[in-house]
């Protein structure tokens, strides 16, 4: 039985609703639960999965699509829904000022100087423009903003002397305050500008765990270094860090930029007269250029910056090769962090492994998200194709953990490579969730054919989830934990190569 319920004029944020959807789907007998705001897009997808359309539903109305095996199951789900909505609705503490627009918020805090905006993409540019008009710096977390809007927002920010981070900016740390998905790191002399959220998280976490500290980490959004946007935010952020007396070393991190934009960025960095480390994830390493050195990996970027501050870097590698048995079978990379996925893929490629990915930057190895692949593959599960109607796996790792469960039980898989991203905004216990998935698979699959699981943890001891605790949870579950994402990928590469040579040796012997 299918049922569509509408509650008029009740707006909730999408993350909260997606959590509710997931909880309702866990009710026995409920096969599908979609709890969403009544936007045209959401209504379309409800109709697509078989619910009857209703007239006059607005984006301010809450829509609940329930598909259940029985009336009883539907009733249980409805009661659960009412309970969760009530607790979510009461979220606001009575002492908190109620505000519904940016203008209201400025009436509460006249000193406000930055707007962190994470509204649905269709409304994001207008909200960002309002914030800039009121003289606020902006971090725009939302994605699905057009390139035209991105350019005009960044130009407007430049005219007003404001910093425009994003759209699609997931991570920043300003004056020690984590914005969006960010880790709790020590203050220090290293400033970071990144066009990649998980790239910033990995570098800042590694710096912190090695005893170093971060002045600021500024995000630009993933598209900033494209030809059309031209690095507008990156250049403004480099200027800000150049002028900032606390920042002594600058790290720039991005996926491979458009060549002409890369040149602009490097020129601006050279002019900054501060030692700089550049990591273009997926680009081959390059020789140093004046004050600029090029890192091979995110971990290498952290290492080089730490060396410039005179700190030791021993913690960045545990020195030992992983001692996991190499079974026959292919590698399955299952990532929540997009840049981490791309880094893992490019390290494995650089070591000569024939591996495909939805984030590969060459057409020969690029595959569409979710396509059937024989052989080695790295998936970025944050890809829109995986997350339609679901939360990003960093917030809600259920999607990734299901894939881990399948991979561990798949006899054709020999190694499973994963990330585990901590910090504000991320799931409360990603390691626990991952460990349970691996444990469940172990109960099902044959012990002698179980693939090795290799992980790295991006985070610090002061993150809400605690790096130390999360790492121990993974290790207790028999998962090999590397010191960095790059190291985990190197371990896998080494194993695959060793196995290749064993195979070759065996082949030569017979």
């Amino acid at each position, binding site marked *: 039985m299918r049922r569509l319920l509408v509650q008029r004029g009740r707006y909730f944020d999408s993350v909260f609703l997606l959590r509710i959807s997931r909880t309702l789907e866990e009710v026995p007998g409920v096969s599908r639960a979609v709890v969403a705001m009544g936007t045209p897009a959401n209504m379309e997808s409800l109709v697509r999965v078989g619910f009857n359309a209703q007239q006059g539903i607005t984006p301010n109305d809450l829509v609940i699509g329930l598909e259940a095996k029985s009336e009883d199951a539907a009733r249980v789900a409805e009661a659960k829904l009412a309970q969760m909505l009530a607790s979510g609705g009461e979220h606001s503490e009575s002492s908190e000022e109620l505000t519904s627009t940016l203008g209201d918020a400025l009436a509460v805090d006249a000193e406000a100087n930055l707007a962190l905006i994470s509204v*649905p993409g269709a409304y994001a540019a207008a909200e960002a423009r309002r*914030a800039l008009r009121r003289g606020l710096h902006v971090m725009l977390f939302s994605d699905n903003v057009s390139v035209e809007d991105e350019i005009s927002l960044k130009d407007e920010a430049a005219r007003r002397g*404001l910093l425009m981070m994003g759209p699609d900016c997931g991570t920043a740390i300003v004056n020690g305050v984590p914005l969006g998905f960010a880790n709790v790191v020590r203050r220090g002399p290293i400033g970071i500008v990144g066009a990649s959220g998980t790239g910033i998280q990995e570098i800042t976490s590694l710096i912190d765990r090695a005893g170093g500290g971060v002045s600021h980490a500024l995000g630009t959004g993933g598209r900033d270094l494209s030809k059309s946007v031209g690095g507008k935010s990156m250049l403004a952020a480099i200027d800000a860090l150049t002028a900032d007396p606390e920042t002594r070393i600058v790290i720039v991190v991005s996926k491979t930029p458009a060549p002409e934009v890369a040149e602009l960025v490097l020129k601006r960095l050279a002019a900054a007269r501060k030692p700089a480390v550049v990591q273009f994830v997926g680009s081959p390493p390059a020789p140093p250029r004046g004050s600029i050195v090029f890192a091979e990996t995110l971990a290498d970027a952290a290492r080089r910056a730490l060396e410039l501050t005179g700190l030791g870097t021993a913690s960045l590698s545990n020195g030992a090769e992983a001692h996991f048995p190499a079974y026959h079978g292919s590698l399955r990379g299952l990532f929540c962090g997009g840049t981490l996925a791309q880094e893992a893929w490019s390290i494995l490629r650089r070591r000569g492994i024939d591996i495909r990915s939805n984030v590969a930057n060459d057409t020969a190895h690029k595959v569409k998200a979710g396509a059937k692949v024989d052989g080695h593959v790295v998936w970025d599960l944050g890809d829109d194709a995986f997350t339609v109607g679901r939360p990003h796996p960093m917030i809600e790792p259920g999607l990734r953990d299901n894939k881990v469960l399948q991979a561990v039980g798949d006899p054709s898989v020999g190694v499973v490579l994963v990330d585990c991203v901590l910090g504000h905004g991320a799931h409360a216990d990603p390691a626990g969730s991952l460990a349970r998935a691996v444990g469940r698979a172990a109960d099902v699959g044959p012990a002698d054919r179980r693939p090795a699981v290799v992980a790295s943890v991006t985070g610090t001891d002061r993150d809400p989830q605690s790096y130390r605790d999360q790492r121990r949870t993974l290790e207790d579950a028999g998962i090999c934990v590397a010191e960095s994402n790059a190291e985990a990928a190197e371990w896998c590469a080494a194993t695959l190569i060793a196995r290749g040579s064993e195979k070759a040796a065996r082949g030569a012997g017979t």
Partner: protein
Amino acid sequence: MKPNSLLRTDLHVVNVGLRSFADGIRAAGGSVVHVEWRPPAGGDAELATIIDRLRSDDDAGWREPVASANAAAVGRLLAAEPRVIGIARADAVIPGMAADTVLHAGPPIEWGDMCGPMRGAVIGGLLYEGLVNSPEDAAELAASGRIRFAPCHEHQAVGPMAGIITASMPVWIVENAAFGNRSFATLNEGLGKVLRYGAYSEEVIARLVWMRDVLAPLLTKALRKHGPLDLRSLLAQALQMGDEGHNRNRAATSLFIRELAPHLVRLAARRDDVARVFEFLNGNDHFTLNLSMPAAKCALDAAAETPGSSLVTVMARNGTEFGIRLAGTGARWFTAPAPKVEGLYFPGYGPDDAAPDIGDSAITETGGYGGFAMAAAPAIVQFVGGSPAKALETTRRMARITMAESPIYRIPALGFRGTPTGIDVLRVVETGILPAINTGIAHKEPGVGMIGAGLVTPPFDCFAQAARALAETLQAPEAQP
């Protein structure tokens, strides 16, 4: 402000969207104000653009002439000094009232479109006037076109529920001492089988006759001895005694009795009549609703007809449609189908028995009390689905769509902050926050009466239409050569 200045100053964040981000900032000791964001203008992109265009360059307020017009309009609303000066026959004081006039609640409506309770009240009104001898004849007369139906609101009057006023009914005369304008309302009949809920049986008519022949003359005389009664002061005190001036009028009614009692007992009248007056007043907790309503009406009328202003001057329902009017668009009504009331029902009744929302009593919310003063009335919070905490939240939420806080009506539980006053239609549309209206629930069949009470959420569409119309009046002068 240069980008690098951001890095040197303390970060003060406004978080628009995902709440968990605010929690993270707070946990790190950062300063953050969280915005409970909703799609602007109810998700209507074109309307959102209209609202955006009315925002000043720095987005801090409305553009001229809206800003000045609103300041003027809400200034007049807050400066009003409503006082009861007497009682008179409706056709003697209400402008445009004749023997064949029947005034009703809400926006304009004809007999054919009226809901059950309103039809019942019309029938009762015609019987009361002696224009017909039976309910059947009354219905026939009402349908004949020989009766002139008109909204109370178009005649400086307001009526609760069906809001029927006929020519010979006694009405309160409320005068706005600050501006000299007047408003009118009938005397409240009490609960149970009463005309305003569509009842027209003999006992209903008999009560109306007694009110006309005994109650009204005695109150008139007592009031004359007392002198004009300051309704502002009466309501201000009642709000500090647990009333909100719409669904709870117990404190105000008690204060009213106390005020008039010495004058009533000194009248040269039959002791039994005076005793019955006291019994009637004491038995009707809503007696002063028919004073708090015209008090709001004459305050809002003083602010009406202010070109450019987005102040809502009327919210009213006729049981079929919900309608509003704006200061900036004068006499024009903006209507949409009347919603159902969400609330608690008396034993034996349920939502299926209810008529859609009806009555002019939402004038109290329009004037800055009623549901807007929910925080003052913890005793009736169950009717609006909640706890005292929820009541506080309702009042604070209303502050987000209003222009000012009342300097007179204050709420102890909110640190004596003034009630949120002067609904700004543009804010309603921008935020999607709809006025919270407390109300009674009428049975859908005429003659049954009140079956519950609760909260009604007006249709967004009325406000959207009104905002569009206001924007058009602002553009019109530029468009002309």
